């Protein structure tokens, strides 16, 4: 042992001991029983229906970007739920533990959570919501949508894609393990020096926090590399830079940020690990360490990270508004420039997370002005969306409602962000719940955009629409919850209530806290509405089945292929003629034209290696957390050996022959015609009746023409 550890350590189990299992905790023990029973039930059900083979072949070993994306989204939704439960616990504690007369149970003086437990709850809430809910949800959508939108068969590196997913899943498993084995960090999701140092946090909580973050950073970096290469290298013929769907641009800018900023987080956490494991002094108060250097390094990553999560959400909104306004996106070029301006400025603003450090007026003014600059490109985006809707034929579907909700929240979050960018105001509300309300408004923009996208792209992925009534019910309940929780929070922030209070001393704040608790109840109802939404939609799936163009007014390339998207995405790689290819083909009457001739296509094989490596990274993280050195070494060696073996073996892939492809296409087209009768003739000779000269090059018998597309670049304004 290089550092002194309280409590026992033995070579076999490290710090692991029976006393680390919280079986006497009145909240965790029943939860553990419920989780175990639930797990047994799921395993029993899968076994009963004989689905293990299906699960293994179709999901666990898949390299299909759509299935990986769906699994990312499932992880994101499950962790969103866990994060929501944490939020509910925080709100309940604060509504309960107000004033000296409030009662206390379960060993807490006030409320039901002891301060140590409460600290873990808010730390887990923050970490989970940012890195295990928002990030996997957005990465999942980028994974599914980007390759289809650019006309690719899969991501550039399908195996790397699976690896990114399973490492992210390992991170999720590690933070869930901390619930029942040991404890979690109590230092806030971003960590404070020096409280996370071994002297002040001798338990394993900080180690769980640190290795979870490391795993998630690794998984997200791998995903980011993959998306960047896919967008740069895998575009279909004709998909020039300025015909890219706007969501692809958003993904590109976001992943540039991810790729450049995540290393800063990994370095910061690596140095924390050096402090905690090797006895170094990077972030200690003495011996040459510097506390604020940690905060600095963390936010060098942390601020770009928040734009990494907001930019894809902006991209989603930019896809949803035009479809339900029946107009092309207003100001495409400025939208692209705005995304990259936001990405660029994201590197110049990190000090605004610690204005009160005391770096002086020059530094604070610089970062204040840089922060306010973000308002310019964001404003451009807001006005572009408004002008997209202006004089459009608006249909207020559930997806559109969620996107509009995101727009309003962006306005609230953005304007309060402008206030916080002023150092004088920042000094006043620093560490108050005003800041919390601000960044929740911003993160809710993401949640709204994500739910909008779930409804918007669900029919593309699964072939049937979600139930509109329940989707709208969920929207209004969720919005009610948002208003009831966050309006009082802004007010309490102005009254000076600080964040992370496990005991609220001021009884005047009680009414507001009770309103927020009511808001949480409304939020809970919206969660139930979501479950009902899924149940009703799956029950009525035959009735809700859709053709290729699920909304009838869709614009970008992904709406040309079948719904659900076949595993090869497009039978023949499409030739792209216009920025809004689906809308352009519809306008030219060739939306339903099918290819005349199929050729063999080359697809990647499934592999279980990614799953094995993901599982081993979990073991490695767990062993590092508990300091089981032999297990660290064993899992690390196993990971390296697996990687070498896989590299030597490679993947020759397999061929889908033209005949097989034709058969599958015929089936898909027949299915689609039953739904809406819109799909055209499969594989027949002679040109179909096309009103205007068309440029669907994947069909050679159509007349080729050099006529510029009617809706090419520049024709939008």
């Amino acid at each position: 042992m290089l550092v002194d550890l309280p409590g026992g350590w033995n070579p076999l189990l490290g710090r692991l001991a029976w006393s680390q299992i919280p079986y006497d905790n009145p909240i965790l023990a029943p939860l553990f029983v419920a989780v175990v029973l639930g797990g047994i039930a799921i395993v029993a059900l899968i076994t009963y229906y004989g689905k293990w083979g299906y699960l293994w072949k179709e999901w666990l070993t898949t390299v299909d970007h759509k299935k990986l994306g769906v699994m990312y989204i499932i992880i994101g939704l499950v962790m969103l739920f866990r994060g929501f439960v944490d939020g509910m616990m925080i709100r309940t504690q604060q509504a309960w533990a107000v004033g000296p007369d409030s009662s206390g149970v379960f060993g807490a003086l006030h409320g039901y959570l002891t301060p140590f437990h409460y600290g873990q709850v808010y730390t887990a809430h923050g970490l989970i919501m940012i890195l295990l809910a928002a990030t996997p949800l957005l990465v999942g959508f980028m994974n599914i949508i980007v390759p289809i939108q650019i006309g690719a068969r899969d991501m550039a590196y399908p195996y790397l894609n699976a690896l990114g997913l399973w490492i992210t899943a390992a991170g999720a498993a590690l933070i869930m393990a901390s619930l029942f084995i040991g404890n979690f960090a109590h230092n806030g999701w971003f960590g404070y020096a020096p409280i996370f140092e071994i002297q002040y946090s001798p338990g394993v909580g900080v180690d769980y926090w640190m290795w979870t973050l490391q795993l998630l950073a690794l998984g997200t970096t791998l995903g980011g590399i993959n998306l960047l290469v896919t967008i740069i290298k895998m575009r279909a013929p004709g998909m020039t830079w300025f015909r890219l769907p706007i969501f692809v641009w958003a993904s590109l800018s976001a992943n540039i940020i991810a790729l450049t900023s995540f290393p800063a987080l990994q370095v910061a956490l690596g140095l924390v690990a050096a402090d905690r494991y090797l006895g170094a002094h990077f972030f200690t108060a003495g011996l040459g360490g510097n506390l604020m250097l940690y905060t600095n390094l963390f936010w060098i990553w942390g601020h770009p990270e928040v734009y990494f999560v907001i930019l894809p959400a902006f991209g989603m909104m930019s896809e949803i508004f035009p479809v339900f306004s029946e107009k092309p996106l207003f100001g495409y070029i400025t939208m692209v420039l705005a995304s990259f301006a936001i990405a660029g400025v994201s590197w110049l603003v990190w000090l605004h997370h610690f204005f009160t450090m005391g770096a002086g007026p020059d530094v604070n003014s610089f970062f204040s002005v840089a922060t306010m600059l973000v308002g310019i490109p964001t404003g451009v985006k807001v006005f572009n969306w408004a002008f997209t809707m202006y004089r459009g034929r608006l249909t207020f579907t559930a997806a559109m409602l969620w996107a509009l909700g995101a727009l309003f929240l962006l306005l609230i979050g953005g304007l309060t962000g402008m206030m916080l960018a002023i150092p004088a105001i920042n000094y006043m509300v620093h560490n108050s719940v005003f800041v919390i309300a601000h960044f929740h408004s911003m993160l809710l923009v993401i949640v709204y955009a994500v739910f909008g996208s779930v409804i918007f792209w669900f029919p593309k992925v699964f072939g049937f629409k979600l139930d509109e009534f329940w989707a709208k019910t969920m929207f209004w309940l969720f919005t009610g919850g948002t208003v009831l929780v966050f309006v009082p929070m802004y007010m309490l922030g102005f009254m000076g209530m600080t964040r992370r209070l496990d005991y609220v001393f001021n009884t005047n704040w009680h009414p507001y806290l009770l309103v927020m608790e009511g808001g949480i109840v409304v939020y809970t109802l919206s969660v139930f509405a979501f479950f009902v939404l899924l149940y009703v939609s799956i029950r009525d799936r035959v009735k809700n089945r859709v053709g290729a163009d699920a909304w009838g007014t869709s614009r970008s390339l992904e709406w040309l292929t079948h719904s659900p998207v076949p595993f090869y995405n497009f039978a023949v790689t499409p030739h792209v003629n216009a920025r809004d290819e689906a809308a352009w083909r519809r306008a030219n009457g060739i939306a339903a034209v099918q290819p005349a001739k199929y050729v063999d296509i080359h697809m990647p094989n499934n592999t279980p290696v990614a799953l094995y490596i993901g599982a081993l990274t979990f073991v490695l993280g767990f062993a590092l957390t508990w300091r089981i050195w032999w297990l660290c070494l064993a899992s690390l060696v196993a990971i390296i050996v697996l990687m070498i073996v896989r590299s030597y073996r490679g993947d020759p892939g397999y061929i889908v022959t033209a005949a097989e492809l034709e058969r599958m296409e015929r089936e898909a087209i027949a299915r689609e015609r039953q739904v809406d009768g819109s799909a055209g003739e499969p594989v027949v000779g002679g040109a179909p009746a096309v009103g205007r000269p068309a440029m669907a090059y994947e069909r050679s018998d159509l007349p080729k023409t050099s006529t510029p597309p009617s809706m090419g670049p520049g024709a939008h304004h």
Partner: protein
Amino acid sequence: MSQAHHGHQGGHGHADPILHPEVQMSSGRGYFSGFLISTLLMLIATFLVSSHAAPPFGLLLVITVCAGISIIAQIYFLLHIDISEHNIWNTVSLVAFIPLFVLTIGLTWWMFSQLYLRTMPPMPGMH
């Protein structure tokens, strides 16, 4: 771009990892030189610091130069990155990386020098 796409669909000639230029550039001698140079520079830097061979500012300069040389040696000998045509994407990444590096290190230096000006007692080697 469309060529890359064709390549993906068709021949797969680039799929053989041995044919990657980075692999072609690698040699036992290159790896050994990279290892030797960076180890030597690290030892020199460690020795200079542990023996307090120069005043703090001078030490800082010397070890910075050592670190710089060893980074370049590692990039060239171990990662096989140069500025030739087949490394165009690495060059692009480098060009994108330099402003970010300058910004983060430069702004950090600025904010912490301003902070120390206001909060720290004068330390040896600081002005």
